[in-house]
């Protein structure tokens, strides 16, 4: 087994951890399940690293590991296997690396919880499913991981199940994801219809070879897009993610920020050639991403929950990634996944640290001035805030700038790209603004703590702050893998493009224009931060004014999608279901037992005959005899 193939063990390890914790967790003493789970993920990270280095020195772009033949029907063959290439290894590094840190952090965060081992079992199971998702060599296996992460997300959101709201949030997440999953299923059915296989590599090859018409590819692409919107919380299926914050905060960090939600981006990047061949589908991807980005950014403005702001920012950042892959810049999308994983995980873990310190308080209006109580959390959060806001020299700047530049230069998505560019630029301003609000309201300004929280407040233990620091380091460092191509060496693009060979071309504007674009994005970040400073630091912003404008309410309600969906989908389908239910029990089912309804006339005739009088039955019998006798007689006898 070569070093590369070792990576295939990572999901098995995580699965093993989940199994041990799930079956025997209650017999283990408290920190043990946590360390066990962390160890399996950490080992997975090591294996991923081996694979990472091994791949660099290898000629061929990918290694294929056959697992087992899943099933075969006629000449349709489904066998399971892993593809280890630069793309999947990058994802693995993110999942196991960030995952490992979050596991460690959770040991302290979940300290004393009655479901300690259950938590780690679910978390490990999630890592396993996510690894299967990214390693899959076929859409089918990817779907197994895809649903697997959905299930784990369900389990973890409803982790504190005794509260109805948590269970409801989990339900919403699961069902919304299922809508996306149906898109995935239909996309797979269509893929089989068009290509006769579900193997991603084969599909891509066939598509590039022109085996399938462009129209069909567009339809397939749109269904994969539907799947991706579900998992990555994009319009119109973004509604579940803010509610998903009901789960423990490290879960939000791992699942709902760093890994699972990026699965949609990964899917589109994996199927890159498919999308590259369909400008229509790609344009859809980009537009959905851009609209999501700006709407979610708007929705983040009026949130007061420390985690919900981050949730909307996640949706918004995922929108950026979608625009990137929509524009055909697959490595850029993954690059943003990469940088975003660090600073978003850091933001969530920082929030977790705050929530932990304040004994469960999540309302930013009741925070402020925490900097002096928890220096590490504050500094690391500041780094993350600057990174996500797109301040130069932080990781987020490089990836966001790459997205903006590639959208501007894209030749795949046609004429609307400038509009998209503007939208993203506006979103960048908004992002910087609300992230400044987030940071300032929590860590700076005056203290608005409740008595209880004030007594409670403390810096988190080392097990929590060390992961914060590591993540903070990468929130800066990660960006330098993908410096702007026109002037600097860019290792990330070459690395990812070894795996994704999509025929997408980009325009090459003059160096001056490139610098100008960079300047624009820097300006956007500065503008956002500046407005934030003006509103919140200088004018002491919102906590003083109890603003209740219509726009503000719209923002607070997550741009009103829940209010729209409730009558449109939820109520109507519930109405349909209960209508059918009463139809079934009153009409279809009563048919036979009560003589009315569907069997109707016949049943009534039979019932009329069934009087129960023996003599009447005898008469019927006798009539039969008479008829027989007469028929025989009139037919001229027996012979």
């Amino acid at each position, binding site marked *: 087994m070569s070093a590369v193939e070792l990576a295939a063990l990572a999901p098995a390890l995580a699965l093993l951890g989940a199994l041990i914790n799930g079956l025997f967790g209650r017999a283990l003493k408290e920190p043990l399940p946590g360390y066990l789970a962390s160890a399996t993920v950490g080992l997975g990270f090591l294996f991923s690293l081996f694979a990472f280095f091994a791949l660099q020195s290898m000629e061929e772009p990918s290694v294929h590991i056959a697992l087992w033949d899943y099933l075969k029907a006629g000449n349709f063959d489904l066998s399971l296997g892993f593809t280890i290439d630069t793309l999947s290894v990058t994802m693995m590094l993110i999942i196991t690396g960030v995952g490992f840190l979050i596991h460690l952090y959770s040991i302290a965060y979940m300290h004393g919880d009655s479901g300690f081992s259950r938590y780690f079992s679910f978390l490990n199971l999630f890592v396993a499913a996510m690894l299967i998702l990214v390693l899959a060599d076929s859409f089918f296996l990817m779907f197994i991981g895809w649903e697997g992460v959905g299930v784990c997300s369900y389990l973890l959101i409803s982790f504190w199940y005794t509260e109805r709201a948590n269970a409801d949030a989990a339900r919403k997440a699961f069902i919304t994801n299922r809508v996306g999953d149906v898109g995935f299923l239909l996309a797979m059915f269509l893929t089989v219809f068009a290509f006769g296989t579900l193997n991603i590599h084969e599909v891509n090859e066939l598509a590039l070879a022109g085996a399938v018409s462009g129209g069909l590819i567009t339809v397939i692409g749109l269904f994969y897009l539907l799947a991706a919107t579900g998992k990555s919380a994009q319009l119109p299926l973004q509604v579940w993610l803010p509610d998903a914050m009901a789960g423990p905060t490290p879960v939000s960090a791992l699942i709902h920020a760093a890994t699972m939600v990026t699965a949609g981006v990964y899917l589109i990047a994996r199927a890159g050639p498919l999308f590259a061949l369909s400008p229509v589908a790609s344009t859809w991807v980009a537009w959905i991403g851009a609209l999501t980005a700006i709407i979610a950014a708007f929705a983040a403005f009026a949130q007061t929950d420390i985690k919900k702001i981050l949730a909307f920012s996640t949706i918004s950042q995922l929108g950026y990634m979608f625009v990137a892959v929509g524009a055909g810049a697959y490595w850029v999308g993954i690059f943003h996944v990469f940088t975003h994983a660090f600073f978003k995980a850091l933001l969530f873990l920082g929030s977790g640290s705050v929530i932990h310190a304040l004994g469960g308080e999540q309302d930013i209006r009741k925070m402020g001035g925490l900097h002096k109580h928890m220096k590490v959390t504050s500094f690391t959060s500041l780094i993350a805030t600057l990174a996500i806001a797109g301040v130069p020299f932080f990781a987020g700047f490089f990836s966001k700038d790459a997205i903006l530049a590639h959208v501007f230069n894209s030749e795949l998505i046609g004429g609307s790209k400038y509009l998209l560019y503007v939208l993203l630029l506006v979103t960048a301003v908004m992002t910087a603004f609300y992230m400044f609000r987030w940071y300032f309201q929590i860590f700076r300004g005056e203290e608005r703590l409740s008595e209880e929280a004030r007594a409670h407040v403390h810096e988190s233990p080392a097990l929590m702050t060390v992961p914060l620091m590591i993540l903070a380091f990468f929130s800066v460092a990660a960006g330098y893998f993908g410096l702007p191509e026109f002037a600097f060496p860019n290792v990330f693009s070459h690395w990812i493009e070894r795996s994704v060979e999509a025929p997408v071309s980009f325009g090459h504007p003059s160096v001056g224009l490139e610098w100008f674009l960079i300047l624009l994005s820097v300006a956007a970040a500065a503008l956002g931060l500046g407005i934030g400073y003006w509103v919140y630091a200088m004018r002491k912003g919102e906590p003083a004014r109890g603003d209740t404008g219509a726009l503000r309410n719209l923002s607070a309600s997550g741009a009103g999608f829940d209010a729209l969906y409730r009558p449109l989908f939820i109520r109507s389908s519930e109405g349909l279901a209960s209508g059918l239910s009463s139809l079934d029990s009153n009409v279809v089912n009563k048919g036979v037992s009560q003589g009315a309804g569907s069997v109707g006339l016949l049943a009534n005739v039979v019932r009329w005959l069934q009087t129960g*009088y023996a*003599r*009447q039955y005898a*008469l019927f019998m*006798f*009539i039969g*005899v*008479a008829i*027989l*006798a*007469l*028929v*025989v*007689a009139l037919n*001229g*006898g*027996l*012979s």
Partner: protein
Amino acid sequence: MLGFLLLSAVMIVGAVGVISLKQPVHAALSLVGTLLTLAVTYVTLEAHFLAAVQVIVYAGAIMVLFLFVIMLLNIQGGQQASDMKWLRPAAYGVAVLAAAGIAITAFRNAAPLPDAATINAALQGGGAEQVADALFSEFVLPFQLVGILLLTGIIGATSLVQRKAMTIYGEAQKKVVAAAKPAKAKASVAVLEGPEPAHIAPAPAEPQAQEDIEQELKDILEPDDLKLIKGIGPILEGLLHEHGITTFEQIAALTPEEIEELDEKLDFRGRIEREDWVSQAKLLAEGKKQ
């Protein structure tokens, strides 16, 4: 031919009698007449053994059984009006059609009879020996089966008729034994727990116990007209019958607990006590004895 017509006439008249005579006894006797005529007809058809069996088994044994049951149950004639009035004309109509159909077929397919000598040679008068030959060769399996069937019938009929009497007899036997012991020791009166159906009868000593058994048997076979009790209509009477209460004595002997139980089971809503069935029944039972 004349003989045949005569026999036919008697037979048809008898058959019509069977179905039209009001009193079951008369109808049964009319059937006996028909069956006997049929026996004679068998003789004209060279079936002497069957004729004899017809007389002995059918007109004899079976009909006696009928008469016995009719008299045992004291079934009276007379019908209430049926709620299926249309049935009678329909039956007549269908009957005429069916008979016509069969007859027409018979006459249209008429074949000449073999000559008398052939018939004689083949049937040889249908004596016991000839029929037995056929029964024990060609028909041996059906014959065995019929034997088993008869046996089953005997067991079935016995268990159907005997069940209740048997249980009562068994209970009464116990009473006799139980009563005999204290009678020997102290010659006192033993009060016994009532068996189902609810009937408590003191059985002081052996001779009385014997009488009791007879009395109970009579109760079972001869129900009283419970409708004489004020408050009991035909429906309630039916319900009581279903619960094994058929006589005044049984009602008279009901204990308060049993009344409550019955009340609940039959949903009488306290009628038994309100209308005081027990004392009514006591009066009626005494009246019956006299």
